[in-house]
Every structure is written in structure tokens, then in C-alpha cells.
């Protein structure tokens, strides 16, 4: 079967890859947006924390025989806890300064994390086996769908929309949104804002680590896997604007799909298409698609 001279199997599989990349963009840009909303910093070590999530899962499986399912919960908790420590010990000292210092601090941390993991594990990358329950695939008629890839999309969408629900519909989320608007006022109303900030950073980091565990069986577990991804995610964030939670999710997914489509039509451009879209958005709508100027 062919559409415009492109086989549907090729189109389908590339769109699937695009959707998977898009789900990672969505989780990562969502985490960045939540952290930015309350802390006003861009978490440069988000990519490193994503990488750490994947490595924690890999170490747990190969050294201790801990299964994928346990790692899916435990790795975000462990990496999130590291995030909590970072917030309590370092980021907290910078809130009164220019926001750029937060960016610089987390950049330094990203170098440290990446350097340590590169020294311990090299740069060749380690493979992580797909858990038994999710191995194999189904034939959809026009294309072959590996079950694990379907699971990644479902799991990440669930987490994204769960997070959206928590922020937009629950009491905790209401505190968080209020804190984003005016944290001094929220504090005056008797809500423990510093604790809220710590929790928010930890949660954003845990999201990155969760994406890392999901990514482990698809991509090579590699110390540099995060830094290559995070710069694309920065472009995604610029395109979407960090003003809206749903905006980050939709922008992430959409750009993943566009990237997949580009890979079918003009493969050479697929690595830069997100950046080109960023340029176009900056020219037409500098505040970003969902941003408030």
C-alpha cells in the first residue's frame, strides 16, 4: 500500500518512532515547565537526570536482578530524591539572584553527572532487555507494532495527563498554581511554600527519570543520551512556551510526529527540523505557541 509514493509501512513505523520521541519530549518539557513555573529556573541537568533514570534501572537489573516494573517506580524515586537534595542544598541559595544563576548551576551539575557516568560506564552504551511481558509485537495490517513501543506511548501519555490532572484539578495543584502566580501571597496564607518548591523540583526530576527508564529498552543506555536529547527539548520548550501544562504536552507530541514525518520525506533534515520550526515560531509568535507574552 502506498500514499504519495511512500509505503504505509514505512510511514507508519516512522510516525510511531516520532510519536515515541514525542512522548519523551512531552514528559521532559512538562517537567521543565513545572519546575520553571514555581522555581523560575531552567533545569539544565534535566537530560542528565533522564540519563540517570535509565542507568539506575540498568544497574538495578544487571547487578541486583531487580525487574523493570520495580525500577519503573524505584528509579524515579531515587533520582527524584537526589533532586530534592540538590534543591535543598544548592538551588535554594540562588532564588534571590538572577535566574540565570540557576541555569549555570544546573549546567555544572549536568557536567558532573555526565562525567561521573562516563568515567564509570564508558560511552559505548549498554543495552537493556525489553521485559518479557512486553516483548514481541502485533501486526496491525499496515504495519508491525512492537508491544513495548505501544506501552511507552501509553505509559508516558498516562503520566503526562495524570500530571495535568493533578495540577489543574486537585488541591495540591491549586496551591502549586497559586505559588506560580504569587508565592509570597501563598506563603502568607499559611502554606509551606519552601516545601512545595522542594516537592515540585523533586517531581519534575522524577518525571525525567521515569522517561529515562521508559527509554532504556529502546535506546542504548548511554551517559550522553540525555545531553543530546535535552537541547531538542529546550527548542520544544521555546516553541510551546512554558506558560501552559497542556501546551508543553501537545507541543512535545506534535514535534515528535513532525520529526518522524520529516524522516520519511527528507531524512537529512530530520535532526534540524525542530530547530527550524523554532526559528519560524520565533519570527511569527515570539512568546511561543502557548506562551503568554
Amino acid at each position: 500500500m502506498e500514499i504519495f509514493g511512500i509505503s504505509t509501512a514505512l510511514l507508519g513505523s516512522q510516525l510511531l518512532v516520532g510519536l515515541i520521541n514525542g512522548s519523551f519530549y512531552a514528559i521532559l518539557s512538562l517537567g521543565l515547565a513545572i519546575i520553571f513555573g514555581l522555581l523560575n529556573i531552567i533545569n539544565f541537568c534535566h537530560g542528565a537526570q533522564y540519563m540517570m533514570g535509565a542507568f539506575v534501572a540498568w544497574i538495578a537489573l544487571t547487578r541486583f536482578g531487580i525487574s523493570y516494573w520495580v525500577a519503573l517506580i524505584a528509579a524515579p524515586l531515587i533520582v527524584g530524591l537526589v533532586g530534592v537534595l540538590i534543591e535543598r542544598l544548592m538551588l535554594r541559595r540562588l532564588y534571590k539572584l538572577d535566574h540565570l544563576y540557576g541555569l549555570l548551576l544546573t549546567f555544572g551539575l549536568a557536567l558532573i553527572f555526565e562525567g561521573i557516568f562516563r568515567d564509570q560506564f564508558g560511552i559505548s552504551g549498554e543495552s537493556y532487555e525489553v521485559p518479557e511481558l512486553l516483548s514481541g509485537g502485533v501486526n496491525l495490517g499496515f504495519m508491525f507494532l512492537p508491544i513495548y513501543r505501544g506501552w511507552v506511548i501509553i505509559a508516558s501519555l498516562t503520566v503526562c495527563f495524570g500530571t495535568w490532572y493533578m495540577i489543574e484539578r486537585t488541591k495540591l495543584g491549586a496551591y502549586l498554581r497559586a505559588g506560580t502566580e504569587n508565592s509570597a501571597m501563598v506563603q502568607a496564607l499559611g502554606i509551606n511554600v519552601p516545601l512545595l518548591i522542594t516537592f515540585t523540583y523533586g517531581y519534575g526530576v522524577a518525571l525525567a527519570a521515569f522517561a529515562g527508564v521508559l527509554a532504556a529498552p529502546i535506546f542504548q543506555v548511554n551517559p550522553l543520551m540525555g545531553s543530546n536529547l535535552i537541547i531538542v527539548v529546550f527548542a520544544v520548550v521555546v516553541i510551546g512556551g512554558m506558560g501552559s501544562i497542556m501546551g508543553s504536552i501537545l507541543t512535545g507530541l506534535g514535534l515528535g510526529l513532525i520529526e518522524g514525518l520529516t524522516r520519511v520525506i527528507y531524512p537529512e533534515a530530520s535532526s534540524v527540523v525542530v530547530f527550524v520550526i523554532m526559528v519560524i515560531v520565533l519570527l511569527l509568535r515570539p512568546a511561543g505557541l502557548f506562551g503568554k507574552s
Partner: protein
Amino acid sequence: MNAPASFAESKLPLLLGVLFVIGLIAPFAVYPTFLMKILCYALFACAFNLLLGFVGLLSFGHAAFLGTAGYVCGMMVRDVGVTPEVGILAGTVAAGLLGWLFGSLAIKRTGIYFAMITLALAQMVFFLAIQIKQTGGEDGLQGVPRGHLFGLLDLSDNIAMYYLVFAIFCFGFFIIYRTIHSPFGQILKAIRENEPRAISLGYDVAKFKLIAFIISAALAGMAGATKTLVFQLASLSDVHWHASGEVVLMTLLGGLGTILGPIVGAATIVALQTQLADSVGSWVTVIMGVIFVICVLSFRRGIVGELQALIKRSGVN
């Protein structure tokens, strides 16, 4: 900073004179290639500092200018066969044009977004450098000849090359010094301190930012093109975001917004990397990260900034 007759400002010409003399005799005491590397990175950091220290714009993509100019210079000298000064000029112009392009996009946003946009644009340059054939991909441009300056002076001699690099550095530094100490530079500082106020005073802030961005990009390119001639190599690592991060670190460590800080920072980092490369290998990245964290947490004024504060406190005037 604001008292014009402070020690640091009044003694600056003297200090620069001393540094100039040291620069002249240094190649007889220290390995010239090492000095040339320091000078290239010092110029790179000074150009970067013009933007961050004096306009308050954090560019996280300055590697794009360093690397692009390096490639252009390398191609012109090796494949077209022009003389070195033309190659450096071509690299500088190319970086300036790229800076004009990136600058006009990036100044549409400020603060954190500005940093992310410059980073993303630079990453696009990195991907292009990997893909197109002319840059040599992973191998880079190797065997770029140093050639003869103006077709006369043989630059394969390290001492001759050193004085060319030193002259280029002084020229670039002079441009930055003049920019900062001109009415134009005062307006840049006004934008840094209070942008809405500068707008309300009638200044076309976007235009000033863009001009500063282009000057900074072109000078970063001049450093990159010169570096290509020194090492006879233009490589992918110069367009990588690590190089962008390195220049931020050099500036921060030396002293943000000080004239001499970036030079001190560049010398310190290059010396440290050279020393550490032998002893600790891949831990260099970790150590750079640790210095970054320490600088941000408790050493925000940098080496030169701290020294200035020390002199001010001790009451010397």
C-alpha cells in the same frame, strides 16, 4: 564599579601596559603553543563577556561562532589557498553574519529563553557540521597550512605565529575595550541595568543588543579562525555545546563584567585542562562541573571581581 576614579579603573592602563610587556616576552619563557591556546580562548571569553557582562545577555551558543569561523578559515586557507590573514578575515566575517542572523532571532526573547534559543541555534549548526561533507564530519578539517602572512612571513615558525596571535588578540581586546568605554557601551550597560528605562529614554534597545551581539559573534569568530591556524585543525568539538559551556565557565571564574576577568579565567581553565588531562583523564569534565558549581554558589564575583573588592575594602585609592 560605579566610582569612576576607583583603584581598578584608574590603574587599568598601567596594568594593561604591564600585561602587554609580559605578552611580548612570554614566548621565550613558556611553550608558545600553550600561550596561543590561552590567547585564543581569552579572546573568545572577552567577546562572550561583552554580551553577558555588559549587556546582560547569556548566550549559550557561542561555540557556533567559534566553530563556524574555524571551518570557514580552514576551508579558505586549505582548499581555496588564500593567505592566512584573508582566511581569518573570512572566518570573522562569516561569524559576524551568523551572529547577525542568530542575534536577530534571539533578541526577540530575554533571560532564560535567550539562553535556550542561542543553545538550540548552535546545536543546529552542530548537526549541520556533522552532516555536510565540506566540514569533514567527525574528522574535521585536518592539515590546514599556516601559510605565509601577507604572502611573506612564514608562520610555520611558532614564534612568528605567536606574535600574529598576540597582535590579533590585542586588536580584538582593543575593540572590546573601546566598545565598553564608548557612549555606545554606556547605553549597553543602561540596558543591562534597566531595560524598560532605556526604552523609555528613547533608545532602540533591540538595535543596540543586536549590534553588541554581532560584535561579540565576530570577535568569537576571529578567535576561532585564529585557533584553526594555530592547531592546523578545525574540528567538531569547537561547535559542540561543551565549548559554549566552557566559555561561560571561563568568564564566570575570571569575573563577570570585568575587563580582565575573561583573560584570567581563560588562562586558568586552559592551564587546568592541560595539567589535568595527563593526570585525571576523563575526570576533567567532572572537575569543570565542580568549579562551575562552586563559582555559582559562593564565588560569583570571580577571581578579578574578588580582587577588586579586596582592594576596595582595604581602602587603597
